């Protein structure tokens, strides 16, 4: 390969992808508007070409990293010779430029997928245009503002790079950003379907099913991404928690909330043909919030521990947000009459009302979180002293709202559509309600001062009871209908026969487990900083901790200070194990990181972080941060159950169309 080729290939592919996407956006628009099939077809081809070109761009960047080509500023800034290949790949999204490129590439990859799978002749031209607008805008920002193919301003090739931020040299960082970005960018498809339906005037039910299906995919990735991010924070940052209401976390949380609301309100539209304007708005809001999230984390508008370097990319993103918001408002206004639903809410005591309240609470949490994130900006803009709100604000507002949400999760499935009868409701509700109340009373009996904990755990048991009741009733009917099905087999066939319903319940089950873990590890957390000296055990929460040794070790790209802490049961003196918390120093970047060690059991996590050496004690002792997080384990278990449920939902959503298509074919055959 000639040298000039290597130097210019990536940048050229990026520009080509951008140009082709811009053509797709404009061509698609006129093709759809003037109903010119040839033009629409050519825009569609351009969109597919943009997908191929942008993927090529990403591969080109990966190759530059693997070749250690430090003539490229971005490669120089984010990698060095000592990094193993997998971290070289993750270095692609370790900085601003590459992460923006990854964003654009994922957008265009999703666009390609959505277009290739779209069979609706009426929606596709508009879909092409909207998807290309999104791809083109991001690729344009990358080309003009955050181009990762810029060269270093020196003629000699540097022999070694700066290296990736050591905090990001963690296996979670390989998957977590990918999942998060696949979640974020995936919401472009439901948004595009929604806009395509509005612009083309084809407001039949088809778009909502397609939007729901792709929302599920993006939502699944986003959920996994958020949970992995929490897990990374838990094991890497050493402060004993997994969620700090940091702006970056909130940026991913906002679209998650609106997407969750959408996934619920869609059901109301499918069943009762209500809330159509609402759904269109939620769909657009989710997409806008994903762009807002990018803006928030890359503009430096609010302080965050994660903040990327500042640049003019913020202005570009803000412009795009304003453009998309206006487009959405105008389009909805244009179709307002057709969108208005003929149905109305007949009773507050109905399934659709429960869904409505679920949506309002989710949006309330979204509003409160948004307000909290933007509080420094708002307080200053309104002429007050610049102020911030921290975790206490978010916990105080969102804590109760989440409890209401979980209560609705238990109550919703028990009531029927339109109007409900009290007798029926009472028949279904009394057992779970009794179990929940018993737990609350039990907790109050043990410790009367912890009312919130008692109410929460009672609530969780109530919801668990209602979900189990749903499965139990359905499985019993299955067993009566089919001879010889075992208990487990009948549960499986319940899920297989109605995956969109029972998949949802599985997700709910995961949420309950997660809520139990979050509540317990927040309320009953034990936390202490202390100095451990050789041969002098200390006790905390039923554990006895003794420092056995403190050693320095040299590794290829860092030096480690490693402590060996023996853990015993304080009462029986039985040895439970050894923990090895570490502190690492990376000379290349002059950074210190802490590697925590945990002893995780389903009951509780013992979590130890090495807080630093004491110059006076030298090698005979060190300061430790120790946390005991009860039921922490169930947060991750809950996450995995949620993932399982989401997979069931996604598979069923993608199969649904085949079923519909087959049934259409059979019915037309029958008619013929």
């Amino acid at each position, binding site marked *: 390969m000639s040298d000039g080729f290597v130097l210019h290939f990536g940048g050229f592919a990026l520009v080509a992808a951008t140009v082709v996407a811009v053509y797709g956006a404009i061509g698609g628009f006129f093709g759809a508007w003037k109903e010119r099939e040839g033009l629409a077809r050519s825009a569609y081809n351009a969109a597919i070409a943009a997908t191929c070109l942008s993927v090529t761009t990403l591969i080109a960047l990966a190759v530059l990293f693997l070749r250690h080509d430090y003539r490229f500023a971005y490669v120089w800034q984010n990698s060095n010779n000592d990094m193993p290949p997998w971290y070289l790949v993750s270095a692609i999204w370790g900085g601003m430029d590459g992460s923006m490129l990854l964003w654009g590439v994922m957008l265009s990859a999703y666009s390609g997928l959505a277009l290739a799978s779209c069979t609706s002749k009426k929606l596709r031209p508009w879909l092409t245009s909207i998807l290309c607008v999104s791809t083109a805008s991001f690729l344009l920002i990358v080309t003009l503002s955050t181009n990762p193919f810029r060269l270093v301003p020196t003629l000699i090739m540097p022999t070694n790079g700066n290296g990736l931020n050591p905090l990001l040299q963690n296996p979670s960082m390989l998957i977590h950003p990918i999942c998060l970005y696949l979640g974020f960018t995936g919401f472009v498809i439901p948004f595009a379907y929604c806009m395509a339906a509005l612009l083309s005037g084809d407001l039949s039910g088809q778009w909502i099913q397609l939007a729901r299906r792709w929302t599920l995919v993006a939502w699944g990735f986003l959920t996994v991404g958020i949970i992995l991010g929490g897990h990374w924070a838990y094991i890497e940052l050493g402060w004993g928690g997994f969620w700090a209401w940091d702006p970056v976390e909130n940026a991913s949380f906002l679209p998650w909330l609106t997407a969750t609301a959408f996934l619920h309100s869609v059901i109301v539209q499918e069943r009762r043909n209500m809330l159509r304007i609402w759904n269109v708005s939620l769909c657009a809001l989710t997409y806008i919030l994903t762009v807002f999230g990018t803006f928030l984390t890359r503009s430096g508008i609010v302080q965050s521990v994660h903040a*990327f370097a500042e640049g003019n990319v913020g202005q570009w993103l803000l412009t795009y947000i304003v453009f998309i918001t206006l487009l959405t408002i105008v389009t909805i206004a244009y179709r307002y009459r057709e969108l208005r639903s003929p149905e109305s809410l007949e009773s*507050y005591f109905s399934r659709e009302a429960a869904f409505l309240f679920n949506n309002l609470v989710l949006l309330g949490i979204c509003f409160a979180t948004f307000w909290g994130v933007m*509080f420094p900006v708002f307080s200053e803009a309104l002429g007050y002293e610049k102020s911030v*709100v921290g975790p*206490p604000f978010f916990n105080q507002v969102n804590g109760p709202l989440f409890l209401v949400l979980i209560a609705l999760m238990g109550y919703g499935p028990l009531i029927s559509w339109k109007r409900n009868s009290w007798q029926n409701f009472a028949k279904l509700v009394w057992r779970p309600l009794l179990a929940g109340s018993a737990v609350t009373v039990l907790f109050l009996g043990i410790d009367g001062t912890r009312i919130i904990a008692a109410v929460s755990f009672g609530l969780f048991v109530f919801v668990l009871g209602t979900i189990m009741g749903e499965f139990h009733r359905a499985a019993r009917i299955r067993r009566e209908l089919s001879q010889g099905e075992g208990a487990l087999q009948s549960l499986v066939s319940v899920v297989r026969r109605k995956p969109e319903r029972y998949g949802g319940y599985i997700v709910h089950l995961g949420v309950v487990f997660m809520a139990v873990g979050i509540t317990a590890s927040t309320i009953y957390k034990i936390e202490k900083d202390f100095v451990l000296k050789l041969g002098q055990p200390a006790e905390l929460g039923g554990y006895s901790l003794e420092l056995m040794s403190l050693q320095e070790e040299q590794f290829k790209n860092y030096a480690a200070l490693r402590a060996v802490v023996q853990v015993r049961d304080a009462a029986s003196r039985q040895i439970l194990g050894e923990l090895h918390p570490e502190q690492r120093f990376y000379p290349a970047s002059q950074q210190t990181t802490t590697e925590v060690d945990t002893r995780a059991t389903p009951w509780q996590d013992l979590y130890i972080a090495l*807080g630093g050496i004491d110059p006076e004690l030298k090698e005979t002792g060190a300061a430790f941060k120790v946390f005991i997080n009860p039921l922490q384990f169930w947060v991750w278990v809950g996450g995995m159950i949620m993932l399982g449920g989401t997979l069931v939902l996604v598979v069923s959503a993608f199969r649904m169309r085949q079923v519909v298509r087959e049934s259409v074919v059979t019915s037309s055959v029958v008619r013929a």
Partner: protein
Amino acid sequence: MKNTRLFLAIGVVGSLISVLVYMAATSTAQAVVTVEQLVREATSRQKVRLGARVTEDAINYQTEPEFKLTFSVQDIIPKEQAAEPLDLKKLNLKKLEVVYAGIRPDTFQPNRDVILEGYFDGKTFTATSLLTQCPSKYEVPLPQD
């Protein structure tokens, strides 16, 4: 109107949540202040957030009988002004003594920027939380010829 129930629900839930947000915000908001501001006012204040730079003065750290980190901070001069070679003494930046009862973070050093949360009694700043900011963020200046 056929949608009365719908709008009533939205109105009631919306107002309740707004009240909740308002109450939580007023009870937990912390003013963002500068060293200059604190020293000038010299009165005790509610919990505030202070972004400042650790000075080169002596840092005192003890671990027993309890953790206690004592140091002083001054305001961070914005980059635009710092571009010119400037004499720090001439600027006469106000210093503020800080006491933090906790483990010294591994990234804590003189000249690092820190975010402190805590109370000012008119004389010393008692920090309840201490966060050190990574000086490099993610980007470093490029090598020059």
